[in-house]
């Protein structure tokens, strides 16, 4: 059952709503007049984004194969988080978005953040991580025509999304510790977290370089073998 029949409107909504919500989260946090409630605002808006996505996801009937494929990608990226130092987690999420579309990308990103945190520690930061990784997978799906064509673009996207993830999570670092968020504090936090930002960007680029072409082949093989 589809609520909105027009394909173009649905597509616009699908892409627009997360962007609008995330932007409003940032704006609420930046311009809220009352000085100290940013933590709550950020977490609540992050939760809202996730709920909205989950509700929208269910409107469409998806086959069991697509559903399980999403679960397989998620489980692989959760498994990838157990590799020490350089983690292929975000790379797997990007690959999922690339080959299975933006919605599956978002689902894989957010679910793998939630589930891997059962081992690595859940907390109020989980919704933020879910949104950050979800958007990583989502935009990989949105830009997939470009990213599938050029390997350089894919690796650049991986590095950029690592930087984006680090910057997004530093909003949480600052709001949770300082309570407010202004540009100077945020930049200082970014400076102190530079090492993590570089390690995310490098591991994303590296794993996309190593894993993306074989994954394309594997998925083509599955398509041939099972007629997906």
């Amino acid at each position, binding site marked *: 059952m589809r609520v909105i029949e027009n394909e173009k409107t649905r597509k616009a909504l699908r892409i627009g709503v997360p962007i609008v919500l995330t932007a409003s989260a940032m704006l609420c946090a930046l311009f809220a007049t009352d000085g100290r409630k940013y933590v709550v605002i950020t977490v609540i808006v992050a939760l809202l984004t996730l709920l909205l996505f989950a509700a929208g996801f*269910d409107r469409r009937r998806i086959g069991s194969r697509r*559903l399980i494929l999403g679960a*397989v990608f998620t489980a692989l990226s959760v498994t990838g988080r157990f590799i020490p130092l350089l983690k292929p987690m975000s790379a797997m999420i990007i690959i999922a978005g690339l080959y299975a579309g933006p919605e599956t990308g978002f689902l894989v990103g957010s679910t793998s953040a939630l*589930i891997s945190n059962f081992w690595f520690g859940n*907390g109020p930061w989980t919704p933020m991580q879910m949104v950050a990784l979800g958007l990583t997978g989502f935009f990989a799906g949105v830009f997939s025509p470009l990213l599938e064509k050029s390997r350089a673009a894919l690796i650049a996207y991986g590095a950029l999304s690592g930087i984006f993830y680090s910057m997004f999570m530093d909003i949480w670092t600052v709001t949770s510790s*300082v309570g407010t968020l202004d540009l100077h504090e945020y930049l*200082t936090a970014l400076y102190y977290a530079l090492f993590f930002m570089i390690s995310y960007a490098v591991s994303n680029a590296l794993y996309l370089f*190593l894993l993306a072409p074989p994954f394309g082949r594997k*998925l083509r093989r599955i398509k041939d*073998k099972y007629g997906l």
Partner: protein
Amino acid sequence: MIWFDKCNPFPALFYFISVTVLAALFNNPYHTAVTLAASIVMFVFMRGRARVALSFSVVFVLTFIVNPLVSKKGATPLIFIGNDPITLESIIYGLNSAAMILSVMFLFFTFTRLLDSEKLLYLLSPFSASAAMTVSAVLRFAPLYLRQARLISAQQKVIGAEGGRSIPERLRSGVRVFSALSTWALENGIIAADSMACRGYGTGKRTFFSFFGFRPSDLVFLLLSAALTAGAAVPAAFSRLSFMYYPVIVLPETGTAFAVSAASYTLLVFLPLIFEITDRIKWKYLQSKI
């Protein structure tokens, strides 16, 4: 926490959300201390390991350090690093918010321990059946894949494909294992999906099965925690109960409003422990009568 484990997941979720939100909103040393005390008692009740508590304290120290380093607010500079002052107020604020985060981490430890896959599925299915299905499938796949990865790695060793100790070699063999794992996982997933389809997944009207009823004590717990949440939050809307840190520390107004709010909050935070202990006492009493 036997009582809390048997509790319906929705009241439990409501409790955890309202305590977390209230702790963050009040953000004052009294509330932080109460939350920390209760969360540590729950951590002990849940038999949390000392190693876990130690890893939490690392996060505590890191969160505490960030604030004085990053924030330049506050009227009482203590020392200067370069041109940047480290102020007394920012140290106290950092200490409080780090303790708040620490208590929330202890609370979430308890919550994650209580929230097994069955409960997660129960909580998610009203919002999105597909997302709930995905989550439960992942909870089964992730440990399976970890085991399979160990198997593949052992087989690689046997055929002598496991490289040397240098970082590029280890990376290469890691990627090889991961690649073999994903080929296997994709095929395994398709077979699982087809088997689901054969058994009629997604054909008829969706029905739910759950282990969780709604006991009278769950309802009492839900109503009490809602009332206490209101009791803690409503007085705060009418008078200034929050703690001011910047530019100088100003204590909140004390009076009836503060007393009502603080008492309700304290009761709210300790509520599951009260239920737990009452239950244990009742159990002991019933046993001794037999």
